[in-house]
């Protein structure tokens, strides 16, 4: 078995290895770096956020003074949509972007994954915490990256995971508590954001250029727009979901 993986010396390298051209290290000139901002607007009646029934696990239920609500569709008071992943889909020059040294974090608190949606970079560490007094299983339902499912008992060591391939919004679930669901997007570059309580997003440090911007929501899917941002400039793009 070991030989199958590592004892192939003497023959020509596989075609796919030969075809990969070296990619330059990415660099953004701070003097010309740009900002892309916008809002994700929701039109129509906001769906009612369903209450989660945690009665099957009282230790989860006790951690909430009022019933927790599903985060599938969260419409903010200003009629904007929360938890939308927005990123540069296309237009960046080919380059290798170094992932940040800091870890992204996914916590299990009150039998809810927090944050509900987040983006991380390829190769960036994702630290997974269980702050609950109960067992969880963390199931990364990736399709492009290797999927995995691991238990995480109470007070267990934090898990550290990395994802090596770009993938947009795959679910992370827990089968012990079937309402637990988070979404992660893996990006090859740092130009992404997730809309929050005001439905806005801001992507900073972007090289000037013309880009395709994509917004992705777990239920409503993706929308795209195109914009050009001048050196040191700010470009705005809004997305609209709903009826």
């Amino acid at each position, binding site marked *: 078995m070991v030989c199958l993986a590592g004892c192939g010396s003497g023959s020509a390298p596989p075609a796919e290895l030969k075809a990969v051209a070296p990619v330059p290290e990415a660099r953004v000139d701070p003097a010309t770096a740009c900002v892309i901002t916008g809002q994700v607007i929701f039109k129509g009646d906001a*769906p009612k956020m*369903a209450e*989660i*029934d945690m009665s*099957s*696990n009282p*230790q*989860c239920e006790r951690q909430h003074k009022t019933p927790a609500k*599903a985060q*599938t569709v969260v419409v903010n008071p200003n009629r904007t949509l929360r938890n939308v992943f927005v990123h540069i889909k296309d237009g960046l020059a080919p380059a290798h972007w170094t992932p940040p040294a800091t870890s992204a974090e996914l916590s299990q608190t009150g039998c809810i994954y927090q944050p509900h949606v987040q983006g991380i970079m390829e190769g960036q560490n994702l630290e997974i915490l269980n702050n609950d007094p*109960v*067992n969880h*299983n963390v*199931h990364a339902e990736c399709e492009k990256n290797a*999927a*995995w*499912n*691991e*238990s995480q*008992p109470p007070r267990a060591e934090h898990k550290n995971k990395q994802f090596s391939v770009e993938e947009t919004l795959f679910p992370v*679930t*827990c*089968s*012990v*508590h*079937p*309402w637990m*669901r988070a979404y992660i997007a893996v990006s090859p570059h740092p130009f992404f954001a997730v809309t929050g309580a005001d439905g806005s997003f801001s992507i900073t440090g972007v090289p000037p250029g013309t880009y395709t911007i994509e917004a992705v929501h777990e239920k409503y899917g993706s929308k795209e727009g195109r914009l050009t941002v001048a050196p040191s400039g700010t470009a705005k793009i809004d997305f609209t979901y709903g009826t």
Partner: protein
Amino acid sequence: MAHSGEYHRGLHRWSILLAFCTLLLVVAGGLVTSRDAGLSVPDWPLSYGKLMPPMEGGILYEHGHRMIATTVGMFTIVSLVWLLIVEKRLWMKWLGGAALVAVIVQGALGGLTVIYLLPWWISSAHASLAQLFFSTTVAMAIFTSGWWLRAPVSVDEDERHPIRGLSLAAPVFVLAQLALGAAARHKAIGSIYHICGSPIVTFVVLWVSLRILLHYARNRELRMGALTLIGVTMTQVFLGIAAYMSRIAYADAVQPMPLMVAFTVLHVAVGALTLATSVALAILVRRNVPAPSRAYSSTRVAAVS
């Protein structure tokens, strides 16, 4: 085949217990899938590295399923040992052996589907083999009964309306429909294939049953068997519609809803009963409607045509 054995009350009752526990196991397996609990215990054969993890949330369903499965496996071993000791019919010993092989393969499929994160083909095979295994245990209960060992009240096959070959169509079509259901449930195919299969398998079941009721009705056992199969199949059709409607109604639910779980699990369980009933009816037909060369070997009732 029917008359060469001896009746062993204990073995027969044990076989009934095995079949009953297997039905419970099918229900438990249905609960695991319907409650989305299949991966709540990521390790196998241990659960969270233990024999008995905390039975909370989805672990209750997944580990409970494993516990019942272990019990059924043990019971199957006991059945085979019992058969090897007291049973005179060689084919019955082979049937007990086949049941043990099936339950071992079934356990391995259950473990593999957990380890490989529920690939559709392993999960579908696991669900389909469960149905076959249940029917095997029901057949074992039939074959170990005193009723089976008595001479049958037989009826001549009506040449214009033969039933011996046709009776095998019902279990074949029901099993195919159950396999489609398992594949749909594990997202290998769309539900539409299972839904489209429903009228076909219902037609085949009615064809077999109505032929018995129209042409072999004076044989009480055949009549009761056909009526039972119709009743179970109609219940199953109703449950299938209810399960599908509940899934549509709760499509946006954040977690499995009790009504959807109840209808779906009942649909799985009655599916197992439908297959077992069709197998039992086929056994009954081939026992009570002997092949032409054996038609005069026992008490006979004239066929009604």
